[in-house]
């Protein structure tokens, strides 16, 4: 039988990104800068957790992995494939917004290209989440542009967070060492390098309109490691928290 490890690896890293960032962003519920934004940000966190669930369901249904709850909440830290960007605590709103902007553009581009994947569940998912991702990027773009162009303080904050987040965001595109060429050959997805280029194009235009400067791309050292299971100190703590209740009795109905 043909190995499916390459697809499983891709799905796992996409799902883990969504799961972890969805949890992080949900922490803003009740703490946002204004009630209206609180509500909007919370909805997008829900969408992310929903995307994670949809991906874990594919793993469960197509590849006989454990059920989504079990898979999402009971693996060892080393088995998670999320990138470092999503692991950091929420910090201040400038960091969370910049992360949201950089991540959600990457997410939108990834899912857009999956509309042409040879793997049917990806095509279906791509179609299903299109509208949600459109809203997320619309929201992110407007915030980045408005804050980038508002006051000296807000401009400085956004520029600083762009510099801070950029190498982490470039880490989203860490290629899967063993699987990259197989995934591309089978036309499952276009490969991380291609996605990275498409992403740079998109964010460049928004960043410019926000009067911000992208760091010198040639000199950026992307923060890799997450896709291989090496994580920041924050992931384990969050995993413990996420599964605290579920772990009391994973066999129980909660």
């Amino acid at each position: 039988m043909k190995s499916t490890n390459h697809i499983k690896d891709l799905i796992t890293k996409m799902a883990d990104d969504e799961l972890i960032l969805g949890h992080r962003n949900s922490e803003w519920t009740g703490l946002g800068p204004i009630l209206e934004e609180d509500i909007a940000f919370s909805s997008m966190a829900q969408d992310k957790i929903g995307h994670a669930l949809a991906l874990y369901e594919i793993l469960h249904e197509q590849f006989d992995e454990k059920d989504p709850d079990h898979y999402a909440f009971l693996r060892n830290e080393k088995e998670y494939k999320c990138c470092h960007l999503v692991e950091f605590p929420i910090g201040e709103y400038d960091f969370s917004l910049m992360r949201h902007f950089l991540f959600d553009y990457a997410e939108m581009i990834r899912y857009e290209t999956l509309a042409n994947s040879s793997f049917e569940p990806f095509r279906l998912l791509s179609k299903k989440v299109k509208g949600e991702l459109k809203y997320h990027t619309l929201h992110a773009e407007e915030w980045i542009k408005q804050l980038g162009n508002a006051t000296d303080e807000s401009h400085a904050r956004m520029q600083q967070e762009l510099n801070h987040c950029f190498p982490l965001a470039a880490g989203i595109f860490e290629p899967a060492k063993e699987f990259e060429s197989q995934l591309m050959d089978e036309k499952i997805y276009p490969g991380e390098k291609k996605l990275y280029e498409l992403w740079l194009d998109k964010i460049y235009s928004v960043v410019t309109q926000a009067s911000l400067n992208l760091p010198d791309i040639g000199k950026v050292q992307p923060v890799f490691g997450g896709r291989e299971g090496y994580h920041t100190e924050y992931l384990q703590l969050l995993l413990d928290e996420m599964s605290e209740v579920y772990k009391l009795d994973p066999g129980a109905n909660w």
Partner: protein
Amino acid sequence: MNNSYDPRVKRLTLKDANISLREGEHWNIFEVFRQDKRGARHVHVGALHAPDPVLALIFAKEQYGRRKDCFNLWVVCSADILAFNDEDSDVFANNREKNYRDASGFKVRDKIEEFRKKSGNIKK
């Protein structure tokens, strides 16, 4: 003071509450009109605070459009809404009397019947 039970709260640096907001810090107010489906009319559903119309629309999408079918929304600054004072609603008071403006004010059938009775032998 942060001996909270809550992990997310533990991660915050808390101080005693002592902030005082300035008037206007929560931005302008916009009215929101919701269109449930294409072709339907927009209906006023509430208001929200936003710095400008674009963010108002973005906020409206979640606060007024996150459940049930929604096709589109309008936002308009509350300060731009012009309305009569309620006590001036008597400007509309005689509308119902002015039935010459209304289909219900025309009863031509009676006249026809009367005419037919009078003239007797017109074929149907």
